């Protein structure tokens, strides 16, 4: 489907046959290809425009090294700019707060919140030796609470016992109380999937946030997300104060442009990646890897 940006840019410069410093028109010709590459990777259009402006500014006037072609030079500038925008420094999930540290998981329906809750709880338990309690605040999706309970059983992480009919804000309160009384280090709160335009449900998650004052609010998003990523990220950030992003289904073959879109509009770091359905399929975010993928390299 995509021949690789290097090849395409090679063609552009082949036609131009330029040497020396990158001229404005060279760079603009190349950036038209970069624009297409980013859009094919599902980077949202407004973010593409910002990115192109930045990368263009950096590229114009750059001396082309004798060892490389102008095409390779532009690819390197684009790649480096992309890595920088994605966040070169890893930002781990932060637990630097009085125990029990509340972590709130939010996102659209089916993005992978419950699965990621299980994975992160398992990692915090096994790798970081934390005592973790998980609670499902999803009273809507059929068998959602049961799903989290089973994941708890599979990973050996405690789940808050379900009280029939209890509403999300009360469940959150009870989870924090249990967390405090029983000496948990971390309380992970899994919420129901919701559309960012669903006023009632967004108000609900805002109320949950008010109640527990979470130390981390992780927005869980699917790596396959298209142009809508910017609307989702912006609204969740505004309404619930997202502190980090988790990208799921990175084990698929989507180019993952949503990572750049979300990072671009929220400035929130991408903290983790889901790379499978199993409970150990969680990794730290690798900006290099995602940058290469977005560019089809």
């Amino acid at each position: 489907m995509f021949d690789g940006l290097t090849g395409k840019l090679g063609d552009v410069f082949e036609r131009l046959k330029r040497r020396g410093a990158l001229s404005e028109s060279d760079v603009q010709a190349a950036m038209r290809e970069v624009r297409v590459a980013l859009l094919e990777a599902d980077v949202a259009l407004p973010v593409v425009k910002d990115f192109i402006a930045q990368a263009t500014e950096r590229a114009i006037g750059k001396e082309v090294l004798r060892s490389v072609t102008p095409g390779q030079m532009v690819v390197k500038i684009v790649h480096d700019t992309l890595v920088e925008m994605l966040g070169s420094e890893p930002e781990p999930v932060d637990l630097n707060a009085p125990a029990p540290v509340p972590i709130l998981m939010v996102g659209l329906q089916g993005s992978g919140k419950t699965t990621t809750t299980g994975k992160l709880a398992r990692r915090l338990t096994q790798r970081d030796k934390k005592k973790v309690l998980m609670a499902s605040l999803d009273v809507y999706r059929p068998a959602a609470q049961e799903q989290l309970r089973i994941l708890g059983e599979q990973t050996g992480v405690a789940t808050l016992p379900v009280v029939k009919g209890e509403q999300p804000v009360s469940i959150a309160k009870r989870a924090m109380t249990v967390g405090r009384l029983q000496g948990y280090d971390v309380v992970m709160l899994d919420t129901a999937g919701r559309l960012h335009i669903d006023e009632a449900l967004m108000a609900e998650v805002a109320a949950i946030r008010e109640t527990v004052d979470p130390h981390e609010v992780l927005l869980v998003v699917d790596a396959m997300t298209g142009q809508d990523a910017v609307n989702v990220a912006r609204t969740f950030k505004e309404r619930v104060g997202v502190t980090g992003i988790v990208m799921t289904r990175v084990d698929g073959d989507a180019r993952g442009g949503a990572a750049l879109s979300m990072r671009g509009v929220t400035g929130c770091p991408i903290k983790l990646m889901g790379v499978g359905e199993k409970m150990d399929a969680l990794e730290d975010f690798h900006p290099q890897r995602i940058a290469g993928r977005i560019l089809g390299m």
Partner: protein
Amino acid sequence: FTKRKLDDATLEELEDLLIQADLGVKTAAKLTANLARERFDKEVTSEEVRQAFADDIAEILTPVALPLAIDPALKPHVVLVVGVNGTGKTTTIGKLAKQFRDQKKKVVLAAGDTFRAAAVEQLKIWGERTGCPVIAGPENCDAASLAFDALKQAKADGADVLLIDTAGRLHNKAALMDELKKVIRVIAKMDPAAPHSTVLVLDATTGQNAHAQVETFRSMVNVTGLVMTKLDGTARGGVVVALADAFGLPVHAVGVGEGADDLRPFDANAFARNLMGLE
């Protein structure tokens, strides 16, 4: 509305609108070029241009707007529901079950997702909601043999429709795709024509990866139609235009919510108008 000449700047704005609805760069460029050919330099309002786009898009979509037709002679008509993780397969089965029940059909559900935590319980709740029996196996049982048992049961009960749920799987995972092929092989032992329909469920928030999903599922398990879910959000699902152009697969229905009644027929005109931001 103020009229203005359809010039390059206006065309670019319109192309941007299409791209932001996930139509993809190529399709957006193609549609824009068509419009330019017909109307360039003519005085047009923005409304007229959008309407012209909507008409072009509706023309592409109209041939694929086909409901999932159940053959009453099959008893049961076997529908296999497939797709990548979290798109809305199980929920769509619940909604389809509701529609068929409203048409007085006898429906059986098969809990073929034997992998994901509480997938069986989830489908069982949909069975209760819609008054349909759910055939399920023990934990982690083989999906293919479960499907086989369900077909046997549905036949014995004289059911009109058997809806088989499957675990979400990424199309690029060969082992999981083989597992799906096995489900088909095994049920074909009892009814060589089964599954009579294989429905791929796509999430409207998905971008260009939908192409790869359709391509792979179609070539591996002979997808016969699509359902697009989550159109109640702000994602417009424009990728379906390119898909219709490339594959011509029927789009049976769209999901517009999480409830049992939130499934609508795919309406080419309404969809096209919504894509172009026309009410």
